[in-house]
Structures are given as C-alpha cells and as structure tokens.
C-alpha cells in the first residue's frame, strides 16, 4: 500500500454502519494529521439497500475526492463484492466480511483479507459492531494511521447517549486488529489458485 495515499471504498447493507465506519477511518486519519475526505452514496439506496462510501487518507492535498480505482475495498455483504471487486487497483486489497460472503473465484492480483466480522461481533454480543471489527483490522494495514490512533479517536465519535457502547466498540476494534495480527486470514497477492484448490 502506498505510504502517501489510501483510497478506500466501503460497502454493505444499509444498517451495517458503513457510513460510520467510513467516518471512523476519516476522523482517525484527520487526528493523525492527514488530509482526508469522505463521500457517501446518498439517497434512496441508503434505505434498506446497499450503502457505500468513499474515504481518502492522504499525506498530500486531496485533489479529486472521487475514487474510481480504490486501493482497498471493505465489503460487508455479497452485493458489495460484486459491485466493487473489479474496480480495485491491481495489487490492492479486498477486505471482506466472511461471515456473509463465501469464498469464491476472486481476482488473482489483489490481496484478500477475510474476516468473519459479523460472527466476531455476534460473539461480543452485538452484531452491529461488525463494522468496527473491520476498522480494527484495517488499522493493521494502514500506513497513514495506527491502531493507537484509532483507539484514541473512536470514543470521541460516540454520541453522548451511546457512551455505554464504548466498551464493546473498543473490544470490536481489538478483535479485528488481533484477528489480522494472528494472520488468520488469506494473505498474499496470488491466492486465486489457493481458493480454487480448496
């Protein structure tokens, strides 16, 4: 991943907290002193359908905030993979929620990171924190902010009436971060054949 700029598309069902996940990454990048932008897909598709948003973290001034070719796609459901998979930059990364997305014939020129985010969230007692499991995992790969930056930023984003959620949210970050630390994910650029062999 570039050390200068990270272009991310995040996608999932409405209600999976996609926009908030994007906001967490953007806010963390900003707190880490980077330039950031966040663009939601807005409108009817947000109601019940798929939601997606675009986040850019950058050392330099962000010219276009639009992302045609993302470095990373974080996919929380199956339609999101179908929609964005082919747009990922060669050598880029697909992080996906393997609780809801089965292994399939992915491209062979991207890094695949599978995380059973919904299952992990379920174990923590709240399926709604799956998005933050992904945030924790992303911190492992980001060159523009650290896991510590993320831990510092998240509580500041919690609205006052959700302060009781801080603990489980932090736990979700940790689970996600540790999951990829322990390398329990498919890693490597040319995994197509690996999957095919399974």
């Amino acid at each position, binding site marked *: 991943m570039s050390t200068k700029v990270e272009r991310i598309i995040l996608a999932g069902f409405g209600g999976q907290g996609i926009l908030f996940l994007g906001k967490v990454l953007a806010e963390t990048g900003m707190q880490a002193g980077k330039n950031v932008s966040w663009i939601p897909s807005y409108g009817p598709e947000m109601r019940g359908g798929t939601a997606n948003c675009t986040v850019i973290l950058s050392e330099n001034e962000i010219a276009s905030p*639009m992302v045609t070719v993302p470095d990373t796609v974080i996919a929380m459901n199956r339609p999101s993979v179908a929609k964005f998979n082919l747009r990922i930059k060669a050598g880029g990364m697909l992080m996906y929620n393997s609780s809801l997305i089965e292994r399939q014939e992915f491209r062979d020129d991207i890094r695949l990171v599978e995380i059973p985010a919904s299952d992990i969230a379920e174990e923590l007692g709240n399926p709604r924190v799956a998005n933050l499991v992904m945030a924790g995992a992303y911190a492992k790969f980001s060159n523009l902010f650290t896991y510590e930056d993320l831990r510092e930023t998240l509580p500041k984003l919690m609205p006052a009436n959700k302060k009781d959620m801080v603990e489980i949210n932090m736990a979700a970050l940790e689970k996600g971060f540790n999951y990829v630390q322990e390398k329990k994910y498919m890693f490597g650029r040319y995994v197509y054949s690996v999957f095919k062999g399974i």
Partner: protein
Amino acid sequence: MAKVLMKGNEAIGEAAVLAGCRYYFGYPITPQSELPAYLSKRLPQVDGIFVQAESEVSAINMVYGAGSAGARVMTSSSSPGISLKQEGISYIAGAEVPCLIVNVVRGGPGLGNIAPAQSDYWQATRGGGHGDYRTIVLAPNSVQEMADMTIEGFELADKFRNPVLLLSDGVLGQMMEPVDLPEPKDYDVNSKKWALGYTGKDKAERNLCSSIFLDVDELEEHNWHLYQKYQVISDLFSKGEFKDFAVEEHLCDDAEIILVGYGIISRILKTVVEKCRKRGIKAGLVRPKVLWPFPTAVMQRLAEKTANFLVVEMSCGQMVEDVKLAVNGKKPVYFFGRTGGTIPSDFEILNEVDKIVRPD
C-alpha cells in the same frame, strides 16, 4: 480552532452562524436537508430564528422580509426548489436586499434525480428569474470553501446590497472533509439604516423596500442603477479587491491545454492535470471560484498563451458558453460533460485530453 470533520451542508450552517446569521427560512429537499436540520438545532442555541416554511416560495419571501428588516438571513434548497424561489430572488434583487441563497444542485430538468449536477449554471449566472438583474454566484470546491464562501457571501451581499448565490452540488453537500472554522462575528440587525424598522437616530423619514417602479422612466433609471452596480462588482472581481478570490489557476503558464471546471469537477480536473503531467502532456487548470461575475479577463489572458481549452461540466454544456465568449474564437474550446447525476471520472476526461492533444 482545531479542524473539524464536517459535511459540506453542515459546514455552511456552522459558518452562517459564525458569520452572524441568525435567520434561516427553508423547505426540505434532498440533497441539502442536512443544512436545515443543522440550523434547526443550532440557531435556537444562539437566539436565532429557524422557520420551516410551507414552500420554497414562502421561504424566499420570508428571506425577503427578514432581509428588508435588516437581518443577516439565508435560505437553501436544491434545483427544483431554487426554481420555485426565483420569483422571490427577482424581487430581492430588484429591491436590493442582501441575503445568501444556497443551491445544492441536483439532476434536472423537472424532478430529475437527487444525484449531483451542475445543470443550474445558466439559471444561477443569468439572474434566474424575470427582469434585468444578476446575483453574485460563488462556487466552492471543498468543504472548507463551503464554510469560507458562506462567510464571504454574507459580506458581499451586505457590501453590494445584492443576493449572493452559493452554487454547490450534491457531492460537496454530502461529503465530509476537515474544516478550519474562524472566530464568530457579531452582526447587529440594526446596522443598516435603509432597513425597515431601523431605529437609529439617523433614520430617513421612512424606509421603503420595493421593486415596483410603475413609471417607465423610473424603472429604466432603476435598472441602469442596478446595471452600474453590477459593473462595479464585475470590475472589483476582474481587477479590484476580489481578483484573487475569483479564480484559481494551476500550472497554466506552460500549458498546451487548459482544463476549465468549477466546483467538484475542478477537483477531478486537478487529478487529471497531475496524470497528464506524468504522461508528458502539459495540462493546466483554471477554476472559476466566482461564476458571476465570470473571470472573462483571465480566460482572455490565457487564450493568448495556451493552445486549447477543454471545459468539463456535469451538464450538457453551460459554462462552456461563457468560456467561448471570453476566448472569442482565439483558440478552440472543447467540451466534455456528463449529466443526469453522473460524475465524469478522471479516466474519461484524460481520454478527452488525449483526443485533443494527441489526435493520432
């Protein structure tokens, strides 16, 4: 103040409050609803007034009323709603009442869709409603500028007693970026001595706020008076105090092709310029930050140097006409547009550049 991550629509709201605006009248429409939502919460905290009107028509007339009574006042809407407001804007311009109007442009014509667009350029820059008048049109391209131009917009409106239009689009309204917000300004409702209800000792016998001049000679005189004011504004933007505020030039000095775009498009064009330069194409960018008065003089100057212009818009081609008027046949002016809510990608635009500078 530390930077805050904010949506463009919210940044406008907060900037308005910091600029001393205490009056907002509006009607819900996507994709600008975050702005009234924000102000409905924020204005009561500063003893301000938020009214959700029964229609855009009513909202703009409330703005007319409040502005005529001396308020620093604003409204916002998106394309179909701005069409409804045109009647009021014409009255406001005729009566020379300052106010800020925000258009978070969406796809049209008609109900169109709620996706970002730039197809209200003509409406914005040609007055928009009936009669001989102009509004000052500001075109931000970042969340920071949404805030900055809101504040500047109120100042310009007061300075020239003229409505100012902030022409944004769905992307800028919805996107979040870090914003540096300035210190709050105080604004005194009783600071305009022409305003209705003004209570200062230097008040005229009485104050009138009207756009009716039934006598043809009087209306002609009034219209020439407005025209002269617009001329003064144009001069200040082309060679006077707002010259640098009006336009951004990027890598134009040696450019063989100059890309022209405003708002969110200008950000994409900047990326295209970077990509062009990496590929050995000397591309530059001109971004009008103020759409009326249009930076005609800048285009004329650049037409002497560059070989080609490529205007890119999220419309079937509106601003391109102003560029052509300015360039006046000296150099070819090409156009590339996407419409209906589609945002052109950097690749598409790069392809257009290729067609122009590397035709084989």
